[in-house]
């Protein structure tokens, strides 16, 4: 996609991109390059010495069966978070779109979780589900269900997924709601007069019309599930029980920031970079074709 109409000159555009270029170079490319360079070394945390190991860090990583397993965990986690944040949001948006009275009140209450920092959201959910003393796990216990996410890996995964998806439901809800409001009512009503049932109307008419939004949210939420959930995992499970909730970025964070193993952490981020690059290509090549604009 290119604009056909453009302005002449090269000094002005260079001046215009200069601030962004400068900030990106200083605060992004230089530090990121440093981090990637470090993946070839085993440095000590204080930066006093470092041993060149070539691809040693990568060999160390892929020789570890736990690291290989965390690819699968990451895939499961990301898919679950994406679904858990998109589907309820879409459902609520569809229903809210049909309401006139009360819609503002619902909307205002629904957006609160978006304002909660992920660091705090983890604390809130752990507070509710703390084994036997959290308010939700306590009531579950009264109904005979013994909630124990510290040993049950399914429950642990469920809890970190819900805690991570929670704030995103609000965010996605806003986007879906906006998209649905833009769907021309006449189209939908015409179908209604034709006697099409609501569910059919929804899947054949509305869903294709909002597919650009859905695609955008899909990408944004996968990126979120990948990169921004480690704080929640750190607070709630620390990657456990065993390694049931150890996703790739959590490992980058815990090895680098908690464990002080900067070499391994840097190598892992190079691996991540490749994974995310591949995912981006796949998303744009295959998914975008199926999206109706």
């Amino acid at each position, binding site marked *: 996609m290119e604009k056909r109409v453009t302005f002449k000159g090269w000094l002005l555009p260079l001046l215009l991109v200069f601030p962004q270029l400068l900030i990106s170079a200083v605060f992004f490319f230089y530090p990121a390059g440093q981090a990637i360079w470090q993946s070839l070394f*085993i440095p*000590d945390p204080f930066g006093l010495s470092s041993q060149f190991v070539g691809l040693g860090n990568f060999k160390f990583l892929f020789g*570890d069966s736990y690291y290989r397993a965390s690819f699968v965990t990451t895939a499961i986690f990301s898919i679950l978070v994406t679904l858990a944040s998109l589907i309820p949001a879409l459902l609520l948006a569809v229903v809210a779109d049909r309401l006139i009275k009360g819609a503002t009140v619902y909307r205002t209450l629904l957006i609160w979780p978006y304002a909660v920092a992920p660091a705090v959201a983890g604390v809130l959910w752990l507070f509710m589900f703390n084994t*036997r003393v959290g308010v939700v796990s306590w009531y579950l216990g009264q109904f005979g269900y013994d909630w124990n996410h*510290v040993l049950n890996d399914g429950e642990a995964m469920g809890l970190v997924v819900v805690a991570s998806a929670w704030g995103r439901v609000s965010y996605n809800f806003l986007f879906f709601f906006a998209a649905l409001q833009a769907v021309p009512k006449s189209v939908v009503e015409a179908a209604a007069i034709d006697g099409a049932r609501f569910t059919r109307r929804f899947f054949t008419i509305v869903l294709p019309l909002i597919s650009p939004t859905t695609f955008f949210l899909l990408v944004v939420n996968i990126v979120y599930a990948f990169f921004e959930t480690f704080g929640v995992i750190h607070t709630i499970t620390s990657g456990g*029980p065993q390694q049931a909730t150890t996703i790739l970025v959590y490992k980058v964070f815990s090895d680098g920031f908690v464990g002080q193993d900067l*070499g391994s952490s840097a190598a892992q981020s190079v691996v991540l970079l490749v994974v995310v690059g591949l995912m981006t290509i796949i998303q744009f090549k295959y998914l975008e074709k199926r999206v109706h604009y």
Partner: protein
Amino acid sequence: MKTKLKSYALGALAASVLCGPTAFAATEVQFWHAFTGRLGELVAEQVETFNGSQSDYQIVASHKGNYSETLNAGIAAFRAKEQPHILMVFEVGTATMMGAKGAIKPIHEVMADAGATFDPDAYIGSVKGYYTTTDGKMLSLPFNSSTPVLWVNKDALKAADVDPEVDLSTWQKVGEVLDKVKAAGSECPLTTAWQSWIHLENLSAYHNTPFATKDNGFAGLDTELAFNSELQVQHVQAMGDWAKDGKFMYAGRRNEGGANFRAGECALFTESSAGYAGISKEAQFEFAVRPLPYWEGSEGAPQNTIIGGASLWVMEGHEADEYKGVAAFLNFLSTADIQAKWHQDTGYLPITVAAGDKTKADGFYDKNPGTDIAVIQMTAKAPTANSKGLRLGSFDQIRGIIDEELEAVWSGDKTAQVALDSAVERGNKLLRRFEQANK
């Protein structure tokens, strides 16, 4: 009393923020620590007392997040040449700090350079041992140290028709009590905090068994983990069996179990002696402290337990007169009055013999029975190579591995032997990496 202390501390903070160094013309010393809440107030109070006691130096205390965040802040700051003078580092970071020659200035050097009077023998052996080289030189100043003990909910025992004064000195006897408590319908006869620290690290020291080779890492970076020997396997298997029978309830890797115990749900709880403040504040039942149990028939047990907590490291790269301020502050922290007060307020161990004696003379142990158990447990025997402490690189990650493997035992996925063998093998790989990074 409490609110008065608080406003005092806040006032001090406001004063140090508002007035700053210009108003005082005193040498400023930066002190980064990991304490908030009540402990944060007590630290602020210590700092204020010191600042008020002389006019040459001004300590500026700053809270930098939890233990690992504080360590990271210190490391990042050092790399940027913005490091504080004094950094609080938790015990698992000890090897990392020791390896950073050129980043840290050992305490004995700080004291010698400053010409301060410094008597290493004034400190309690098993406390300072963790932070001392094999030839007896103190590297960092123990600040808050605690050791694991057994907490007992007397009401829960009574409810299970068990004499609340029952003998719980050995794990065999604990096992019998757990049977009875479980039979009486308890959902949580036993829980724990910090499982690796209590049930492997301390278990090993307490039974005079190595946790790792090379004197638990004190004698060299080429140390290897050794906690898969008979003693540890037997203990972890016993805990695993209790977990299967519902007699041991696992609540999490950190001190999550504390919430269950304080709520009155659990009968027994293995936790740090520093849990005292929280338990005495929140527990609405009668509780008691007992020494950590040991396995009867194990040779040399009970030896002594080891500490957990944090110490103060002095960082390189500052002016000589600033180090004089550091030395003065650290000596101030070691005085009997300050230490005795800290010990009595927090449940942390006193770091000097004099502070322990003063607390006894004050009659504190008589008024608060059980508070001396941790001190006795620590100091009953002179520490051996197996019970001096641990000095392992990447120890935070190794603890993570141990947590994972123990969880596999608690959930019945692995036997103790398989889990501990796996933990040793995985941990050794990290030790080799650490060795390589610190050549």
